[in-house]
């Protein structure tokens, strides 16, 4: 078992100097958000994640979730951890006070979620889905449904799930066939089977609220004919307490590479009779809109999983590298074994991981901040920040989850043979991380969203104008920042060129889609670079003012490393963006393998 140390100083640096938390406090919605209060909360939240959740992470992997007679059992340590989570109330941070929440901005809640996920990713996945369900209901459900269900979902006493996937409807949600029938009393009856439903059944809460996508008999084809229903595990009695069992059962759970204690369930609705009782959320045939509300939040949260798991694995690798002695490092006394952290190649692995982790953090936090600004501002400003948030969400989701796997893999490499042996626990992080590029819309689908949808905003003008605005962050002309600014600016040039190419070739869908994934990676690398450059300017201010000089100097170094050694990857990515689909389709499917 290993410890987790919440990276509170790094988080505070990003909140203060990169996303400008103080700006939120000047807006009416968030006048109560003061930096010291926030850090006081996060300090305590960090202590909670490290001492209440992190120790249960190993049990989650080795014991996992098990299914007997339709009931899923989680490890004993998890029930205690979950009860503590509800009692401490952290899940309610960003939700409205009217339902028992703290009215905090998403950027603050996400800082907590980063720590919760790093402490125990499979555990945090449950609250992630509950939060998404709360959002869908806040924006789309009737008052009555909100009053009945939200308070106990906001507190975490009741869990929420999200049911899209069916065997024939994965990436292609529009192909789903689960049926809904209207009933005279205004409720609905749901019949069908869903697969891969995270936390579809478990013993952590005494109620599970399923949000289920289904089709009414007269529904149009495709995504325009999908409606969203609330289907609880237990129907409520007159006092609002869970009572009679609804016709929803977990028929099996998957045996997975990682996140073993997060049950991934096949759910059967209405197997025993006329269908499971459900309530409509939003309008009939308008379910995709509600599902998108939920998914947009969930996509950013999954991006955070990449950051969080990378941080956790990296902490373990850095600790190991300071302890393990092997070989004599250049410059060390002959005949002695050096700590492997003294070998340049091990340094390379550790610094590279650290820089990428900081890059993921600035991107995901800026993404959350854009959502907060869109919520708190009005009119054109709100619309602007909404577009920024929409643009950054696929970047956060896909780029951070890819890097999460890469950094976790590097952490194994730092451990040498011990990394491949389960005993150290570092391999668990890599196995856990591997799901994140797949669920919540595969990373391939994220890239399509970026080039197919987001690039088209404002008739194709939004992205270029946003990129132009990022130049401000690389304009600091102090000598010490020269190569940082120049490196990121060169990346911006490449991003602008590839963006122009994609916009010009918009009509050739196949060519544009062929370059989508490398473009997303290029895009995210450069945006994160501009945010790190912004942080570097602030860090230099702090160094010049003599504040925490060592800490801020380290920030200058990681930003410079990123600008000099990571951003140049864009030069290798650009030809892949503009290569067209020529070679991809030059071979028959049979010739591919």
């Amino acid at each position, binding site marked *: 078992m290993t410890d987790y140390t919440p990276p509170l100083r790094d988080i505070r640096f990003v909140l203060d100097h990169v996303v400008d938390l103080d700006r939120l406090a000047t807006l009416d919605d968030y006048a109560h958000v003061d930096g010291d209060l926030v850090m*006081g*909360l996060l300090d*305590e939240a960090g202590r909670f994640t490290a001492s209440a959740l992190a120790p249960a992470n190993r049990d989650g992997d080795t014991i996992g979730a098990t299914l007997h007679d339709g009931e899923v059992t989680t490890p004993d340590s998890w029930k205690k951890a979950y009860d*503590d989570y509800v*009692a401490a109330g952290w899940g309610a941070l960003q939700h409205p006070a009217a339902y028992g929440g703290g009215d905090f901005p998403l950027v603050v809640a996400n800082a907590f979620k980063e720590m919760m996920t790093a402490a125990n990713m499979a555990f945090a996945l449950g609250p992630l889905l509950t939060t998404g369900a709360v959002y869908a209901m806040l924006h789309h459900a009737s008052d009555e449904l909100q009053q009945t269900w939200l308070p106990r979902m906001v507190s975490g006493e009741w869990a929420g799930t999200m049911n899209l996937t069916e065997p024939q409807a994965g990436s292609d949600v529009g192909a789903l066939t689960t049926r809904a029938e209207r009933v005279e009393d205004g409720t609905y009856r749901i019949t069908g089977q869903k697969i891969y439903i995270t936390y579809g059944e478990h013993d952590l809460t005494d109620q599970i609220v399923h949000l289920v996508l289904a089709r009414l008999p007269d529904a149009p084809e495709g995504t325009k004919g999908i409606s969203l229903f609330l289907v609880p595990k237990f129907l409520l009695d007159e006092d609002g307490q869970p009572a009679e069992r609804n016709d929803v059962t977990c028929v099996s759970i998957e045996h997975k590479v990682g996140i073993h204690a997060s049950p991934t369930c096949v759910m059967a609705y209405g197997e025993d009779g006329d269908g499971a009782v459900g309530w409509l959320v939003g309008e009939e045939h308008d379910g995709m809109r509600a599902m998108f509300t939920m998914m947009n939040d969930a996509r950013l949260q999954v991006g955070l999983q990449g950051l969080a798991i990378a941080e956790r694995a990296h902490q373990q690798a850095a600790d190991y590298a300071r302890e393990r002695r092997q070989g004599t490092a250049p410059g060390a006394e002959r005949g002695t074994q050096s700590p492997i952290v003294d070998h340049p190649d091990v340094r390379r692995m550790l610094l590279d991981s650290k820089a990428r982790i900081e890059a993921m953090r600035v991107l995901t936090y800026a993404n959350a901040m854009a959502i907060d600004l869109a919520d708190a501002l009005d009119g054109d400003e709100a619309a602007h920040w909404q577009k920024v948030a929409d643009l950054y969400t696929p970047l956060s989701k896909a780029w951070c989850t890819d890097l999460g796997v890469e950094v976790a893999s590097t952490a194994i490499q730092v451990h040498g043979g011990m990394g491949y042996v389960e005993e150290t626990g570092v391999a668990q992080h890599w196995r856990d991380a591997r799901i994140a590029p797949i669920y919540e819309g595969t990373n391939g689908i994220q890239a399509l969203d970026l080039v197919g949808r987001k690039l088209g905003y404002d008739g194709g003008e939004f992205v270029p104008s946003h990129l132009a605005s990022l130049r401000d962050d690389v304009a600091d002309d102090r000598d010490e920042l020269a190569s940082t600014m120049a490196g990121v600016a060169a990346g911006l040039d490449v991003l602008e060129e590839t963006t122009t190419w994609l916009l010009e070739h918009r009509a050739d869908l196949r060519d544009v889609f062929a370059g989508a994934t490398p473009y997303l990676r290029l895009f995210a690398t450069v945006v994160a670079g501009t945010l790190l450059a912004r942080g570097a300017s602030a860090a230099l201010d702090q160094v010049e003012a003599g504040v925490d000089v060592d800490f801020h100097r380290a920030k200058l170094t990681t930003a410079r490393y990123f600008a000099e050694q990571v951003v140049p990857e864009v030069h290798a990515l650009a030809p892949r963006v503009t290569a067209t689909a020529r070679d991809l389709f030059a071979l028959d499917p049979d010739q591919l393998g």
Partner: protein
Amino acid sequence: MKVIVPVKRVPDTAGDKVIDADTKTMDRDAGETVLCPVNEFAIEEAVKLKEATGAEVTVLLIGPDGAQSTIRKALSYGLDGAIQVTDDAISGSDALGTARVIAAALADVEFDVVIFGNQSTDARTSLVPAAVAELLDLPSLTYARFMEIDGDAITVHREHEEGWDVVESTLPAVVSVVEAINEPRYPNFKGIMAAKSKPLDVKSLADLGVDAAAVGAGDAAATMYAFEPRPPKAAGTIVTDDGSGSAADDLADWMEEQKFI
């Protein structure tokens, strides 16, 4: 019911303690400080009384301005208010001097029970609770691993090496608790936010009518003559086997030498 929980600010138990070479007292401003972890058990017991009986719980802290974050931390568990006694003259007090100040502060307020942690993680004298009880002429129920209040009677299980004694008395009384008594909860985030606005009553020695000459380093009954950092851990003994199973004998010899067997 009214409950008082005296709390203390101590150096972070994970960090190193810094002792001032001149005054031979702990430098409490050096390094991270925390609410004494043993206090969390006393607070948990108070919170349980609050939940069960609606008891009003007040935190009492003797310490400088810088210790207010410790008070807020204690309040974040949902307690009602705090009293802080702060006065430069208190600095350097020994356990008895501290007990005099606490007793004077308690003499000023109404309470049914005072719940201490049985010791603080920095000094570990365990003297203060008993001294306070003596000064106030109240029953002293220390080392409680269980406590129960029924009307104006209190029962505790007093822990000692062989087990525990059942001790009963009337209220008001002074209790000190050991870590076996409960499992402290985590503060709730709303409790943390509410702690900011809980009433805090700050008093000086003059307010309490305590003679400054009776406390502080000058009047301390205990005198610190010298101190020394803990010696670094000696390297452990490594027993290697030469292939013949000799390690088993070596280990057994070593254990006998150490009087483990």
